[in-house]
Each structure stands twice: as structure tokens, then as C-alpha cells.
């Protein structure tokens, strides 16, 4: 029934007459979870603000270590990732799997850029600012709040990658469960590319920061560079079209539920950005 409807493109994505509430169960569950997560983040933000309003003597001045340019860039990236996520849901609701994949990949890349920015920021705070989780109450509340948000982003990225791989499940059941093994290798390739790609990118930035240039970089990091290229090639190979797939408009609710989670991560940052970062430049002691 649903596949017939999907083929005709007439699924009502906002209502489900088969449930008692008229709302798809997955969507209802996700909204209930997000409502509870609001309370969780509300408590974390309150805790951070309370301790910021009563700083102990000798506490680190956040303005000395914050980089408003970096944080603004991260905020912009997360906003744009939300746009790509919305477009991804829009595409799958039209049954356009290819565009959905592209939008999912874009969301993953933007999510990884945000996470990379957060890793760089934390590293900078610890090594340059001397702010750790335990040596200052500001560090404790700041890392707990932004770290919890970062963990949400990381879970979101993992979910996006798994959904991306899921879009390749073949429609032909005679292929057996071989796609699971291929999906597993697809996932491993993706993960390895993220790790190697980040390593090789950071090494390149470091080489230029030290004034060494490409010559030094390639003489010291050629294996990781070629490895990243090989993994990228692997990712293209896995993404090669192999016939009809068991993924389409009927799966829109799965993509939409994931999208709700991703947008929630964005709206939490919409609150954290002014409250934790911008207010430091205006009013906090």
C-alpha cells in the first residue's frame, strides 16, 4: 500500500490516518524526545549562567580566550547545515534519492566542520588559555554545556552517515544480505576518510603556519595524503549506481525524524551562541 502510494507520490507527510493521534509515531516520538531535551539544555544553560554571574576570584576572563570570529563561523556553518537538512527532507518527500544523498553529504560535511571548529576551540582553550574542565568553575560549566551540545552534533553526524549508507540498499531481495557487508565497509571507509582527512588537513595547516609550505608537507605527510585520496576514491566507488534501491518517498519519515533531531541541535546553538559567547562582550563580570 505504502509503496504504491510512494510510487504515485501521494503520501501525506504531515498526517497519518492509521494512528490514533493522526501523527506518524516516529515523528511524535521525536518531538516528545526533543521537548525533554529542551529541559535538559535549559538546566545546563542555567547552571552556566549562575556560575558566570558569581565568578570566584581569579577566574579566567573568557574574552581573553574566546575567538568570536571562529564561533560566528561555526554558527553560520550550523545554520547552513540546517538548510541542507531541510532540503534533504524536501527531496526525499519528492522521492528524489540522488538529491537527498547530496544534501545528506553536505549536512555531514558542515556538521564535521562545526565539530572540527569545536575541537580546535577546546584545544586552544586548554593549551593556550589554560582552561580545563577542573581548574576553573567557568571551565566546568562551559565544557559541560558546549561539550554536551557537541556530543549531540557528533551523534547527529553518525546518524546522517548511517542514513546516507542506508539509501544504497538494493531493491532486489535476491542479492541477500550482501549489502549489509558492503554497507559496513562503506561506513568504515567513511569513518577512515574523516579521520585521515582531518589529520592530513590539520597537517597541511600546521605546515603553512610554520612557514614550511607544500614541499615540507608532502615530504612528511605523503602517506596520509595519498591514503585520504584513496579513501575518497573508495567512497565514490561505493556510491556508484547499482540499479534500483529500496529507499524512496516511503522512507521520508525516517529522514524527517533525523532532520528534526538535527534542527534541534541547531536551535540549541541558536540559544548558546548569544547567551554563552556574545553576552560575555556586553554584561557578564
Amino acid at each position: 500500500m505504502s509503496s504504491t502510494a510512494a510510487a504515485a507520490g501521494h503520501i501525506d507527510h504531515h498526517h497519518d490516518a492509521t494512528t490514533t493521534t493522526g501523527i506518524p509515531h516516529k515523528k511524535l516520538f521525536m518531538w516528545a524526545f526533543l521537548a525533554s531535551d529542551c529541559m535538559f539544555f535549559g538546566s545546563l544553560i542555567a547552571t552556566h549562567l549562575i556560575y558566570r554571574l558569581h565568578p570566584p576570584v581569579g577566574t579566567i576572563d573568557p574574552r581573553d580566550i574566546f575567538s568570536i570570529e571562529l564561533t560566528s563561523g561555526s554558527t553560520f556553518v550550523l545554520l547552513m547545515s540546517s538548510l541542507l537538512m531541510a532540503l534533504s527532507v524536501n527531496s526525499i518527500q519528492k522521492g528524489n534519492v540522488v538529491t537527498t544523498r547530496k544534501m545528506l553529504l553536505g549536512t555531514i560535511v558542515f556538521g564535521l566542520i562545526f565539530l572540527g571548529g569545536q575541537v580546535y576551540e577546546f584545544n586552544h582553550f586548554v593549551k593556550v588559555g589554560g582552561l580545563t574542565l577542573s581548574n576553573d568553575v567557568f571551565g566546568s560549566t562551559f565544557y559541560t554545556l558546549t561539550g554536551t551540545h557537541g556530543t549531540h552534533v557528533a551523534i547527529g553526524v553518525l546518524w546522517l552517515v548511517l542514513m546516507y549508507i542506508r539509501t544504497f540498499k538494493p531493491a532486489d531481495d535476491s542479492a541477500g544480505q550482501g549489502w549489509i557487508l558492503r554497507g559496513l565497509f562503506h561506513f568504515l571507509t567513511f569513518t577512515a576518510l574523516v579521520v585521515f582527512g582531518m589529520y592530513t588537513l590539520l597537517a597541511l595547516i600546521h605546515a603553512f603556519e610554520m612557514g614550511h609550505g607544500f614541499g615540507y608537507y608532502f615530504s612528511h605527510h605523503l602517506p596520509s595524503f595519498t591514503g585520504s585520496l584513496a579513501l575518497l576514491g573508495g567512497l565514490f566507488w561505493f556510491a556508484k549506481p547499482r540499479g534500483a534501491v529500496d529507499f524512496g518517498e516511503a522512507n521520508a519519515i525516517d529522514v524527517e525524524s533525523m532532520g528534526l533531531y538535527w534542527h534541534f541541535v541547531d536551535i540549541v546553538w541558536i540559544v548558546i551562541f548569544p547567551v554563552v559567547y556574545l553576552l560575555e562582550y556586553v554584561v557578564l563580570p
Partner: protein
Amino acid sequence: MSDTASVASSEAHAHESKFHVFVQLAMVLAIITGLELLVIYMPLAIWLIITLLMAMSAIKFVAVIWVFMHLKWDKRFLTVLFFIGTVIGSGTLWALLLVHGAEASTPIGPAYEELG
């Protein structure tokens, strides 16, 4: 046959217009983020800056849940459900800030005393 074609055409149009709404909203959100940055460097009263920051944050918050998260097109029950969590979460935040902002809540002890 023509009815089916007409329904498909109107749905395609709805999806197409959603695409434009999403892109336009993202541009508006980016502009508001830029304004947030601008406001903190403007020579305004602190209360006004805080009010502007909170207002812009609230606008972005509502815009994302209303359009990107499809509450505009979904059943009202979901809006009510989510706002129950939001109201309890933000209510807890304000209550804690008020309690800890009271004079009797000012922390005391060596860590809070200026060194001679």
C-alpha cells in the same frame, strides 16, 4: 487521469515553493546572526543590547522550528508538545537565575573574597 496529473502538479509546486522558502529563511537567519554580532559592538544601553539579542535569538528559534522543522504544516498537537518542554526548560532557567540572583544567594568564602 487528468485529476492525478493535476494533484501531482500541485504537489510538485508545493515542494518547489518550500524549496524557495527554505533558502530564503536560511538567508534571513544568516543576516540576523550578523546583526547579533553587530549589536554587541554598538554604543547602546546594556538592557537594550540584551533585549535585542534575546529577541533575535527567539526569532531564529521560532523560525527554525516553524519552517525547517515543519511545525507550520504539522498538527498543532506537536507544537503544544514541544512548547511544554520549552516552557518548562526556560521556566526552570529563569527560576534558577532569580533564586541565585537574590542577595541571600551571593556565594561567600575564600574563593569569593578579593585578596588583600
